[in-house]
Protein backbone atom coordinates (compact mmCIF):
# COMPACT_ATOMS: atom_id res chain seq x y z
CA UNK A 1 0.00 0.00 0.00
CA UNK A 2 3.00 2.32 0.13
CA UNK A 3 2.53 2.56 -3.60
CA UNK A 4 -0.91 3.99 -2.96
CA UNK A 5 0.49 6.53 -0.51
CA UNK A 6 2.94 7.77 -3.09
CA UNK A 7 0.11 8.76 -5.39
CA UNK A 8 -1.68 10.86 -2.76
CA UNK A 9 0.20 14.02 -3.83
CA UNK A 10 -0.99 13.34 -7.36
CA UNK A 11 -4.54 12.98 -6.12
CA UNK A 12 -4.32 16.24 -4.16
CA UNK A 13 -2.89 17.96 -7.20
CA UNK A 14 -5.65 16.54 -9.34
CA UNK A 15 -8.34 17.68 -6.90
CA UNK A 16 -7.01 21.23 -6.85
CA UNK A 17 -6.79 21.40 -10.64
CA UNK A 18 -10.18 19.85 -11.18
CA UNK A 19 -11.96 22.19 -8.81
CA UNK A 20 -10.30 25.22 -10.38
CA UNK A 21 -11.10 24.07 -13.90
CA UNK A 22 -14.71 23.31 -13.09
CA UNK A 23 -15.30 26.65 -11.41
CA UNK A 24 -13.79 28.35 -14.41
CA UNK A 25 -15.88 26.29 -16.81
CA UNK A 26 -19.05 26.95 -14.82
CA UNK A 27 -18.65 30.71 -14.77
CA UNK A 28 -21.03 32.51 -17.06
CA UNK A 29 -20.00 33.33 -20.57
CA UNK A 30 -19.04 37.02 -20.83
CA UNK A 31 -21.79 39.38 -21.92
CA UNK A 32 -20.29 40.34 -25.24
CA UNK A 33 -20.72 37.92 -28.08
CA UNK A 34 -21.53 34.86 -26.00
CA UNK A 35 -22.97 33.27 -29.09
CA UNK A 36 -19.48 33.10 -30.49
CA UNK A 37 -18.21 32.00 -27.08
CA UNK A 38 -20.53 29.05 -26.90
CA UNK A 39 -19.99 28.13 -30.54
CA UNK A 40 -16.25 28.35 -30.12
CA UNK A 41 -16.44 26.19 -27.05
CA UNK A 42 -18.51 23.64 -28.91
CA UNK A 43 -16.10 23.57 -31.83
CA UNK A 44 -13.15 23.23 -29.47
CA UNK A 45 -14.88 20.27 -27.90
CA UNK A 46 -15.50 18.73 -31.29
CA UNK A 47 -11.87 19.28 -32.18
CA UNK A 48 -10.76 17.62 -28.97
CA UNK A 49 -12.82 14.51 -29.61
CA UNK A 50 -11.61 14.33 -33.20
CA UNK A 51 -7.99 14.60 -32.06
CA UNK A 52 -8.58 11.82 -29.56
CA UNK A 53 -10.12 9.59 -32.23
CA UNK A 54 -7.31 10.33 -34.65
CA UNK A 55 -4.68 9.59 -32.04
CA UNK A 56 -6.32 6.22 -31.49
CA UNK A 57 -5.85 5.46 -35.19
CA UNK A 58 -2.33 6.92 -35.20
CA UNK A 59 -1.32 4.82 -32.24
CA UNK A 60 -2.67 1.71 -33.86
CA UNK A 61 -0.61 2.43 -36.97
CA UNK A 62 2.55 3.21 -35.01
CA UNK A 63 2.17 0.07 -32.95
CA UNK A 64 1.85 -2.15 -35.99
CA UNK A 65 4.67 -0.36 -37.84
CA UNK A 66 7.17 -0.44 -35.04
CA UNK A 67 6.33 -3.89 -33.94
CA UNK A 68 5.19 -5.23 -30.67
CA UNK A 69 7.64 -6.04 -27.94
CA UNK A 70 6.65 -7.44 -24.64
CA UNK A 71 3.83 -9.32 -26.12
CA UNK A 72 3.57 -12.88 -24.98
CA UNK A 73 4.28 -14.20 -28.44
CA UNK A 74 7.41 -12.12 -28.77
CA UNK A 75 8.57 -13.13 -25.32
CA UNK A 76 8.21 -16.78 -26.16
CA UNK A 77 10.22 -16.25 -29.31
CA UNK A 78 12.97 -14.52 -27.34
CA UNK A 79 13.02 -17.29 -24.79
CA UNK A 80 13.44 -19.84 -27.55
CA UNK A 81 16.35 -17.92 -29.08
CA UNK A 82 17.86 -17.69 -25.60
CA UNK A 83 17.76 -21.48 -25.18
CA UNK A 84 19.12 -22.15 -28.64
CA UNK A 85 21.96 -19.71 -28.01
CA UNK A 86 23.23 -21.41 -24.85
CA UNK A 87 22.73 -24.82 -26.35
CA UNK A 88 24.74 -23.87 -29.40
CA UNK A 89 27.56 -22.39 -27.29
CA UNK A 90 27.66 -25.51 -25.13
CA UNK A 91 27.83 -27.68 -28.23
CA UNK A 92 30.38 -25.38 -29.80
CA UNK A 93 28.02 -25.00 -32.67
CA UNK A 94 29.10 -21.45 -33.46
CA UNK A 95 27.51 -21.38 -36.87
CA UNK A 96 24.00 -21.63 -35.50
CA UNK A 97 21.71 -18.80 -36.53
CA UNK A 98 21.21 -17.83 -32.91
CA UNK A 99 24.91 -17.08 -32.46
CA UNK A 100 26.69 -14.01 -33.67
CA UNK A 101 30.43 -13.50 -33.31
CA UNK A 102 31.28 -9.90 -32.48
CA UNK A 103 35.03 -9.71 -31.76
CA UNK A 104 38.02 -11.95 -31.36
CA UNK A 105 41.22 -11.36 -29.39
CA UNK A 106 44.49 -13.38 -29.43
CA UNK A 107 47.17 -13.21 -26.80
CA UNK A 108 50.49 -15.05 -26.11
CA UNK A 109 50.45 -16.75 -22.72
CA UNK A 110 53.63 -17.12 -20.63
CA UNK A 111 53.72 -19.93 -18.14
CA UNK A 112 50.78 -22.21 -17.35
CA UNK A 113 48.71 -19.96 -15.15
CA UNK A 114 46.03 -17.64 -16.45
CA UNK A 115 44.36 -15.07 -14.21
CA UNK A 116 41.01 -13.65 -15.37
CA UNK A 117 40.13 -10.32 -13.78
CA UNK A 118 36.85 -8.46 -13.91
CA UNK A 119 37.60 -4.76 -13.80
CA UNK A 120 33.92 -4.00 -13.27
CA UNK A 121 33.52 -5.97 -10.10
CA UNK A 122 33.05 -2.85 -7.95
CA UNK A 123 29.97 -2.03 -9.99
CA UNK A 124 28.42 -5.40 -9.52
CA UNK A 125 28.77 -6.21 -13.20
CA UNK A 126 29.60 -9.81 -13.83
CA UNK A 127 30.99 -11.78 -16.74
CA UNK A 128 30.10 -15.18 -17.92
CA UNK A 129 33.12 -16.95 -19.33
CA UNK A 130 33.30 -20.26 -21.12
CA UNK A 131 36.73 -21.83 -20.96
CA UNK A 132 37.79 -24.55 -23.34
CA UNK A 133 41.16 -26.28 -23.01
CA UNK A 134 42.66 -27.31 -26.30
CA UNK A 135 45.79 -29.41 -27.05
CA UNK A 136 47.26 -27.78 -30.09
CA UNK A 137 47.23 -24.19 -28.93
CA UNK A 138 50.89 -23.27 -28.63
CA UNK A 139 50.84 -20.83 -25.76
CA UNK A 140 48.00 -18.91 -27.31
CA UNK A 141 44.86 -17.56 -25.64
CA UNK A 142 41.94 -16.89 -27.90
CA UNK A 143 39.01 -14.90 -26.52
CA UNK A 144 35.84 -14.46 -28.55
CA UNK A 145 32.75 -12.42 -27.70
CA UNK A 146 29.46 -13.85 -28.87
CA UNK A 147 26.01 -12.42 -28.67
CA UNK A 148 22.56 -13.59 -29.59
CA UNK A 149 21.59 -13.29 -33.18
CA UNK A 150 18.37 -11.41 -32.59
CA UNK A 151 18.22 -8.56 -35.00
CA UNK A 152 19.20 -4.99 -34.55
CA UNK A 153 17.11 -4.01 -31.50
CA UNK A 154 19.71 -2.31 -29.38
CA UNK A 155 18.07 -3.03 -26.10
CA UNK A 156 19.16 -6.64 -26.51
CA UNK A 157 22.79 -5.79 -27.00
CA UNK A 158 25.05 -4.51 -24.26
CA UNK A 159 28.27 -2.76 -25.08
CA UNK A 160 30.96 -5.21 -26.12
CA UNK A 161 33.64 -5.83 -23.55
CA UNK A 162 37.24 -4.72 -23.79
CA UNK A 163 39.74 -7.48 -23.12
CA UNK A 164 43.38 -6.62 -22.58
CA UNK A 165 46.57 -8.35 -21.46
CA UNK A 166 48.34 -6.86 -18.51
CA UNK A 167 52.15 -6.32 -18.54
CA UNK A 168 53.00 -9.75 -17.09
CA UNK A 169 51.13 -11.47 -19.90
CA UNK A 170 49.48 -13.84 -17.52
CA UNK A 171 46.44 -11.85 -16.54
CA UNK A 172 43.48 -11.14 -18.82
CA UNK A 173 41.61 -7.99 -17.90
CA UNK A 174 37.97 -7.66 -18.90
CA UNK A 175 36.11 -4.43 -18.82
CA UNK A 176 32.74 -3.41 -20.05
CA UNK A 177 31.11 -0.02 -20.22
CA UNK A 178 27.65 -0.30 -18.80
CA UNK A 179 25.08 0.66 -21.34
CA UNK A 180 22.23 2.97 -20.37
CA UNK A 181 19.03 2.52 -22.27
CA UNK A 182 16.01 4.80 -21.99
CA UNK A 183 12.86 2.88 -22.64
CA UNK A 184 9.34 4.05 -23.05
CA UNK A 185 6.95 1.34 -22.10
CA UNK A 186 3.58 1.82 -23.70
CA UNK A 187 1.66 0.44 -20.80
CA UNK A 188 -2.00 -0.41 -20.67
CA UNK A 189 -4.18 1.79 -18.51
CA UNK A 190 -4.90 0.75 -14.99
CA UNK A 191 -8.49 -0.31 -15.54
CA UNK A 192 -7.19 -2.83 -18.09
CA UNK A 193 -4.19 -3.92 -16.01
CA UNK A 194 -6.53 -4.69 -13.15
CA UNK A 195 -7.75 -7.71 -15.03
CA UNK A 196 -4.46 -8.75 -16.59
CA UNK A 197 -2.83 -9.51 -13.25
CA UNK A 198 -0.71 -6.37 -13.14
CA UNK A 199 -2.78 -4.29 -10.76
CA UNK A 200 -1.89 -0.79 -9.69
CA UNK A 201 1.90 -0.57 -9.76
CA UNK A 202 2.27 -4.31 -10.00
CA UNK A 203 5.21 -6.38 -11.09
CA UNK A 204 6.23 -4.12 -13.86
CA UNK A 205 9.77 -5.48 -13.90
CA UNK A 206 8.29 -8.45 -15.69
CA UNK A 207 8.72 -6.36 -18.78
CA UNK A 208 12.47 -6.48 -18.35
CA UNK A 209 14.11 -8.68 -20.88
CA UNK A 210 16.60 -11.32 -20.79
CA UNK A 211 19.64 -9.31 -21.77
CA UNK A 212 22.20 -11.15 -19.60
CA UNK A 213 23.72 -12.59 -22.70
CA UNK A 214 27.29 -11.44 -23.07
CA UNK A 215 29.39 -14.51 -23.35
CA UNK A 216 33.19 -14.52 -23.62
CA UNK A 217 34.47 -17.77 -24.96
CA UNK A 218 38.14 -18.37 -24.11
CA UNK A 219 40.30 -21.09 -25.55
CA UNK A 220 43.51 -21.86 -23.61
CA UNK A 221 46.25 -24.56 -23.99
CA UNK A 222 45.52 -27.73 -22.14
CA UNK A 223 47.18 -27.79 -18.75
CA UNK A 224 46.69 -24.15 -18.06
CA UNK A 225 45.38 -23.36 -14.59
CA UNK A 226 42.67 -20.70 -14.78
CA UNK A 227 41.99 -18.53 -11.78
CA UNK A 228 39.26 -15.90 -11.48
CA UNK A 229 38.36 -12.85 -9.50
CA UNK A 230 34.92 -12.18 -8.08
CA UNK A 231 31.92 -11.62 -10.35
CA UNK A 232 33.36 -13.77 -13.01
CA UNK A 233 31.77 -17.12 -13.59
CA UNK A 234 33.49 -19.84 -15.46
CA UNK A 235 31.95 -22.74 -17.24
CA UNK A 236 34.42 -25.32 -18.29
CA UNK A 237 33.61 -26.79 -21.67
CA UNK A 238 34.36 -30.54 -22.03
Amino acid at each position, binding site marked *: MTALLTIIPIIVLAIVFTVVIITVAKS*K*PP*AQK*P*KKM*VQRRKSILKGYFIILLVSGVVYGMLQSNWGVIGDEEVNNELEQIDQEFYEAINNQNFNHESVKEVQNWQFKLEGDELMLTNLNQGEGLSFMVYVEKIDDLEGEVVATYYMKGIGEEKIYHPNKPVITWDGTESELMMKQHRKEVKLHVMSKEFPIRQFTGERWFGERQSHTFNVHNQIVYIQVPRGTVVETSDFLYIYEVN
Partner: protein
Amino acid sequence: MGIVICDNVSKSFKKNRAIKNLSCTFQENRITGLIGRNGAGKTTLLKTIAGRWRPNEGVVKVFDEDPYDNLKVSANMICVNDELVFSPELTLDEILKSGEMFYSNWDMEIAEGLFDYFELNPNLYHDQLSKGKLSTFNMIVGLASRCPLTIFDEPTTGMDYSVRQDFYRALLKDYINHPRTIILSSHLLNELEDILEDIVLIDKGEICLHESMNDLKEYAIRITGKREDIEPFIVEENILHKKKLEFNLESLVVKNEFSKEEIEQMKQRGIQILNVDAADLSMFLTGQSKGGIDDVF
Protein backbone atom coordinates in the same frame (compact mmCIF):
# COMPACT_ATOMS: atom_id res chain seq x y z
CA MET B 1 -64.81 23.89 -10.01
CA GLY B 2 -61.87 24.87 -7.86
CA ILE B 3 -58.63 24.26 -9.69
CA VAL B 4 -56.58 25.41 -6.74
CA ILE B 5 -57.86 24.93 -3.22
CA CYS B 6 -55.94 26.20 -0.22
CA ASP B 7 -57.32 25.15 3.13
CA ASN B 8 -55.93 26.78 6.24
CA VAL B 9 -52.44 26.94 4.81
CA SER B 10 -49.52 28.31 6.79
CA LYS B 11 -45.94 28.57 5.67
CA SER B 12 -43.11 30.04 7.67
CA PHE B 13 -39.41 30.52 7.12
CA LYS B 14 -37.18 30.31 10.16
CA LYS B 15 -39.28 32.41 12.55
CA ASN B 16 -40.89 34.53 9.87
CA ARG B 17 -44.42 33.50 9.00
CA ALA B 18 -45.06 34.25 5.36
CA ILE B 19 -48.66 33.06 5.13
CA LYS B 20 -51.03 32.30 7.97
CA ASN B 21 -54.10 30.09 8.03
CA LEU B 22 -54.90 31.08 4.50
CA SER B 23 -57.91 29.58 2.76
CA CYS B 24 -58.99 30.35 -0.75
CA THR B 25 -60.18 28.70 -3.93
CA PHE B 26 -59.15 29.66 -7.44
CA GLN B 27 -61.89 28.83 -9.91
CA GLU B 28 -61.37 27.01 -13.17
CA ASN B 29 -60.87 29.03 -16.34
CA ARG B 30 -60.77 32.41 -14.65
CA ILE B 31 -58.15 35.09 -14.58
CA THR B 32 -57.63 35.86 -10.93
CA GLY B 33 -55.50 38.72 -9.71
CA LEU B 34 -53.53 38.20 -6.55
CA ILE B 35 -52.97 41.68 -5.25
CA GLY B 36 -50.96 42.74 -2.27
CA ARG B 37 -48.10 44.90 -1.18
CA ASN B 38 -44.52 43.76 -1.38
CA GLY B 39 -43.92 41.17 1.30
CA ALA B 40 -47.60 40.38 1.74
CA GLY B 41 -46.99 36.70 0.99
CA LYS B 42 -47.96 36.56 -2.68
CA THR B 43 -44.84 34.76 -3.83
CA THR B 44 -44.96 32.34 -0.92
CA LEU B 45 -48.56 31.45 -1.70
CA LEU B 46 -47.85 30.99 -5.41
CA LYS B 47 -44.79 28.85 -4.80
CA THR B 48 -46.78 26.72 -2.41
CA ILE B 49 -49.43 26.26 -5.08
CA ALA B 50 -46.70 25.46 -7.59
CA GLY B 51 -45.50 22.69 -5.29
CA ARG B 52 -42.07 24.11 -4.64
CA TRP B 53 -42.40 23.23 -0.98
CA ARG B 54 -44.83 21.79 1.49
CA PRO B 55 -46.85 24.13 3.71
CA ASN B 56 -46.17 23.84 7.44
CA GLU B 57 -49.88 23.48 8.08
CA GLY B 58 -52.98 23.05 6.01
CA VAL B 59 -53.69 21.42 2.69
CA VAL B 60 -53.12 22.64 -0.85
CA LYS B 61 -54.89 20.90 -3.69
CA VAL B 62 -54.20 21.56 -7.34
CA PHE B 63 -56.32 19.59 -9.81
CA ASP B 64 -57.46 17.66 -6.71
CA GLU B 65 -53.92 16.55 -5.97
CA ASP B 66 -51.16 17.58 -3.62
CA PRO B 67 -48.92 19.71 -5.85
CA TYR B 68 -45.74 18.98 -3.92
CA ASP B 69 -43.44 16.72 -5.90
CA ASN B 70 -46.31 15.93 -8.26
CA LEU B 71 -45.51 15.18 -11.87
CA LYS B 72 -49.06 15.62 -13.13
CA VAL B 73 -49.33 19.06 -11.53
CA SER B 74 -45.93 19.99 -12.85
CA ALA B 75 -46.90 18.97 -16.37
CA ASN B 76 -50.10 21.01 -16.31
CA MET B 77 -48.82 24.08 -14.55
CA ILE B 78 -46.24 26.72 -15.18
CA CYS B 79 -45.12 29.27 -12.64
CA VAL B 80 -43.44 32.25 -14.24
CA ASN B 81 -41.42 34.49 -11.97
CA ASP B 82 -38.19 36.39 -12.28
CA GLU B 83 -36.25 33.52 -10.71
CA LEU B 84 -36.56 31.27 -13.74
CA VAL B 85 -33.24 29.60 -14.40
CA PHE B 86 -32.54 28.39 -17.90
CA SER B 87 -29.42 26.83 -19.27
CA PRO B 88 -26.85 29.57 -19.87
CA GLU B 89 -25.77 27.77 -23.02
CA LEU B 90 -29.08 27.72 -24.84
CA THR B 91 -30.25 30.54 -27.03
CA LEU B 92 -33.74 31.88 -26.44
CA ASP B 93 -34.82 30.00 -29.52
CA GLU B 94 -33.42 26.75 -28.14
CA ILE B 95 -35.14 27.36 -24.80
CA LEU B 96 -38.44 27.71 -26.64
CA LYS B 97 -37.76 24.40 -28.40
CA SER B 98 -37.08 22.80 -25.02
CA GLY B 99 -40.38 24.18 -23.77
CA GLU B 100 -42.10 22.60 -26.75
CA MET B 101 -40.50 19.29 -25.84
CA PHE B 102 -41.76 19.44 -22.25
CA TYR B 103 -45.27 20.88 -22.60
CA SER B 104 -47.74 19.04 -24.78
CA ASN B 105 -49.97 22.10 -25.32
CA TRP B 106 -47.05 24.33 -26.29
CA ASP B 107 -47.90 26.81 -29.06
CA MET B 108 -44.79 27.67 -31.01
CA GLU B 109 -46.70 29.96 -33.38
CA ILE B 110 -47.72 32.27 -30.54
CA ALA B 111 -44.21 32.18 -29.11
CA GLU B 112 -42.64 33.12 -32.43
CA GLY B 113 -45.24 35.76 -33.13
CA LEU B 114 -44.63 37.41 -29.77
CA PHE B 115 -40.89 37.13 -30.33
CA ASP B 116 -41.18 39.11 -33.54
CA TYR B 117 -43.55 41.63 -32.05
CA PHE B 118 -41.39 42.37 -29.01
CA GLU B 119 -38.27 42.33 -31.16
CA LEU B 120 -36.49 39.72 -29.13
CA ASN B 121 -33.42 38.30 -30.77
CA PRO B 122 -33.82 34.51 -30.75
CA ASN B 123 -30.06 34.07 -30.87
CA LEU B 124 -29.44 35.78 -27.56
CA TYR B 125 -28.90 33.99 -24.26
CA HIS B 126 -31.14 34.23 -21.26
CA ASP B 127 -28.63 35.90 -18.96
CA GLN B 128 -27.86 38.52 -21.58
CA LEU B 129 -31.30 40.08 -21.42
CA SER B 130 -32.15 43.31 -19.67
CA LYS B 131 -34.65 43.17 -16.83
CA GLY B 132 -37.54 44.20 -19.04
CA LYS B 133 -36.65 41.85 -21.90
CA LEU B 134 -36.18 39.05 -19.41
CA SER B 135 -39.70 39.56 -18.09
CA THR B 136 -40.98 39.70 -21.67
CA PHE B 137 -39.27 36.45 -22.54
CA ASN B 138 -40.50 34.71 -19.39
CA MET B 139 -44.00 35.94 -20.15
CA ILE B 140 -43.79 34.46 -23.64
CA VAL B 141 -42.76 31.12 -22.14
CA GLY B 142 -45.70 31.34 -19.74
CA LEU B 143 -48.20 32.08 -22.51
CA ALA B 144 -46.85 29.61 -25.05
CA SER B 145 -46.78 26.71 -22.61
CA ARG B 146 -50.57 27.05 -22.47
CA CYS B 147 -50.80 25.13 -19.21
CA PRO B 148 -54.25 24.57 -17.70
CA LEU B 149 -52.91 26.41 -14.67
CA THR B 150 -50.70 29.35 -15.53
CA ILE B 151 -49.21 31.40 -12.73
CA PHE B 152 -47.52 34.74 -13.31
CA ASP B 153 -45.76 36.14 -10.27
CA GLU B 154 -45.09 39.84 -10.78
CA PRO B 155 -44.66 39.26 -14.51
CA THR B 156 -44.26 42.89 -15.50
CA THR B 157 -41.18 43.72 -13.45
CA GLY B 158 -38.98 46.00 -15.48
CA MET B 159 -41.34 46.21 -18.46
CA ASP B 160 -42.11 49.70 -19.64
CA TYR B 161 -45.68 50.98 -19.87
CA SER B 162 -46.41 50.09 -23.48
CA VAL B 163 -44.99 46.58 -23.12
CA ARG B 164 -47.14 46.05 -20.02
CA GLN B 165 -50.25 47.09 -21.96
CA ASP B 166 -49.28 44.75 -24.78
CA PHE B 167 -48.74 41.94 -22.34
CA TYR B 168 -52.17 42.37 -20.74
CA ARG B 169 -53.76 42.43 -24.16
CA ALA B 170 -51.81 39.37 -25.29
CA LEU B 171 -52.78 37.55 -22.11
CA LEU B 172 -56.45 38.40 -22.57
CA LYS B 173 -56.54 37.45 -26.24
CA ASP B 174 -54.81 34.15 -25.62
CA TYR B 175 -57.14 33.51 -22.71
CA ILE B 176 -60.19 34.22 -24.89
CA ASN B 177 -58.94 31.78 -27.52
CA HIS B 178 -57.82 29.16 -25.00
CA PRO B 179 -59.61 29.63 -21.69
CA ARG B 180 -57.56 28.39 -18.77
CA THR B 181 -56.94 29.17 -15.15
CA ILE B 182 -54.59 32.08 -14.79
CA ILE B 183 -53.33 33.55 -11.55
CA LEU B 184 -51.61 36.88 -11.92
CA SER B 185 -49.89 38.48 -8.99
CA SER B 186 -49.09 42.16 -8.98
CA HIS B 187 -48.93 45.18 -6.81
CA LEU B 188 -50.25 47.29 -9.69
CA LEU B 189 -53.98 46.68 -9.84
CA ASN B 190 -55.13 49.66 -11.88
CA GLU B 191 -53.43 48.50 -15.08
CA LEU B 192 -54.87 45.06 -15.12
CA GLU B 193 -58.24 45.41 -13.42
CA ASP B 194 -60.16 45.17 -16.69
CA ILE B 195 -58.76 41.80 -17.64
CA LEU B 196 -59.32 40.22 -14.23
CA GLU B 197 -62.43 38.31 -13.39
CA ASP B 198 -61.68 37.67 -9.74
CA ILE B 199 -59.45 39.41 -7.30
CA VAL B 200 -57.78 38.12 -4.16
CA LEU B 201 -56.36 40.71 -1.83
CA ILE B 202 -53.63 39.47 0.42
CA ASP B 203 -52.09 41.33 3.30
CA LYS B 204 -49.58 40.17 5.90
CA GLY B 205 -50.01 36.57 4.84
CA GLU B 206 -53.78 36.60 5.11
CA ILE B 207 -56.56 36.88 2.57
CA CYS B 208 -58.49 40.05 3.22
CA LEU B 209 -60.84 39.92 0.27
CA HIS B 210 -61.85 37.50 -2.46
CA GLU B 211 -64.41 38.98 -4.82
CA SER B 212 -65.28 39.15 -8.45
CA MET B 213 -63.81 42.24 -10.01
CA ASN B 214 -67.28 43.66 -10.78
CA ASP B 215 -68.35 43.30 -7.16
CA LEU B 216 -65.16 44.88 -5.98
CA LYS B 217 -65.99 48.02 -7.91
CA GLU B 218 -69.24 48.30 -6.01
CA TYR B 219 -67.78 47.14 -2.75
CA ALA B 220 -67.25 50.63 -1.42
CA ILE B 221 -68.07 54.28 -2.13
CA ARG B 222 -66.45 57.56 -1.27
CA ILE B 223 -68.65 60.00 0.67
CA THR B 224 -67.62 63.60 1.04
CA GLY B 225 -69.50 66.15 3.07
CA LYS B 226 -69.87 67.93 6.41
CA ARG B 227 -69.18 65.67 9.34
CA GLU B 228 -72.53 66.23 11.04
CA ASP B 229 -74.37 65.47 7.77
CA ILE B 230 -72.48 62.26 7.18
CA GLU B 231 -72.39 60.84 10.66
CA PRO B 232 -76.01 59.55 10.89
CA PHE B 233 -75.48 57.30 7.86
CA ILE B 234 -72.20 55.70 8.88
CA VAL B 235 -71.46 52.54 10.82
CA GLU B 236 -67.99 52.89 12.30
CA GLU B 237 -66.70 49.39 11.36
CA ASN B 238 -67.51 49.97 7.71
CA ILE B 239 -65.10 52.87 7.38
CA LEU B 240 -62.14 51.80 5.28
CA HIS B 241 -60.41 55.11 4.93
CA LYS B 242 -60.93 58.52 6.46
CA LYS B 243 -59.55 61.84 5.35
CA LYS B 244 -60.23 65.17 7.07
CA LEU B 245 -60.52 68.17 4.81
CA GLU B 246 -60.79 71.92 5.43
CA PHE B 247 -64.07 73.52 6.66
CA ASN B 248 -65.10 70.59 8.82
CA LEU B 249 -65.42 68.43 5.72
CA GLU B 250 -64.64 64.75 5.75
CA SER B 251 -64.02 62.28 2.95
CA LEU B 252 -64.78 58.70 3.89
CA VAL B 253 -64.42 55.45 2.03
CA VAL B 254 -67.03 53.08 3.38
CA LYS B 255 -68.40 49.69 2.54
CA ASN B 256 -71.36 50.07 0.26
CA GLU B 257 -74.17 48.69 2.38
CA PHE B 258 -76.54 51.53 1.72
CA SER B 259 -80.05 51.20 0.35
CA LYS B 260 -81.18 53.24 -2.63
CA GLU B 261 -83.18 55.48 -0.32
CA GLU B 262 -80.20 56.23 1.88
CA ILE B 263 -78.15 57.22 -1.16
CA GLU B 264 -81.00 59.50 -2.25
CA GLN B 265 -81.19 61.08 1.17
CA MET B 266 -77.46 61.70 1.28
CA LYS B 267 -77.53 63.29 -2.13
CA GLN B 268 -80.30 65.57 -1.07
CA ARG B 269 -78.24 66.74 1.88
CA GLY B 270 -75.53 67.75 -0.51
CA ILE B 271 -73.27 64.85 0.27
CA GLN B 272 -71.07 63.96 -2.70
CA ILE B 273 -71.00 60.28 -3.58
CA LEU B 274 -68.33 58.83 -5.84
CA ASN B 275 -67.14 55.43 -6.89
CA VAL B 276 -63.84 54.17 -5.54
CA ASP B 277 -61.17 53.14 -7.92
CA ALA B 278 -60.36 49.44 -7.46
CA ALA B 279 -56.69 50.14 -7.07
CA ASP B 280 -57.33 52.72 -4.36
CA LEU B 281 -59.75 50.40 -2.66
CA SER B 282 -57.25 47.58 -2.59
CA MET B 283 -54.77 49.97 -1.06
CA PHE B 284 -57.23 50.99 1.64
CA LEU B 285 -58.15 47.38 2.35
CA THR B 286 -54.57 46.36 2.80
CA GLY B 287 -53.53 49.54 4.56
CA GLN B 288 -52.02 49.76 7.99
CA SER B 289 -54.35 52.37 9.45
CA LYS B 290 -57.50 54.10 8.31
CA GLY B 291 -55.84 57.43 7.72
CA GLY B 292 -52.92 56.19 5.70
CA ILE B 293 -49.73 58.20 5.58
CA ASP B 294 -51.63 61.29 6.75
CA ASP B 295 -51.82 59.80 10.25
CA VAL B 296 -48.10 60.34 10.59
CA PHE B 297 -48.35 64.11 10.15
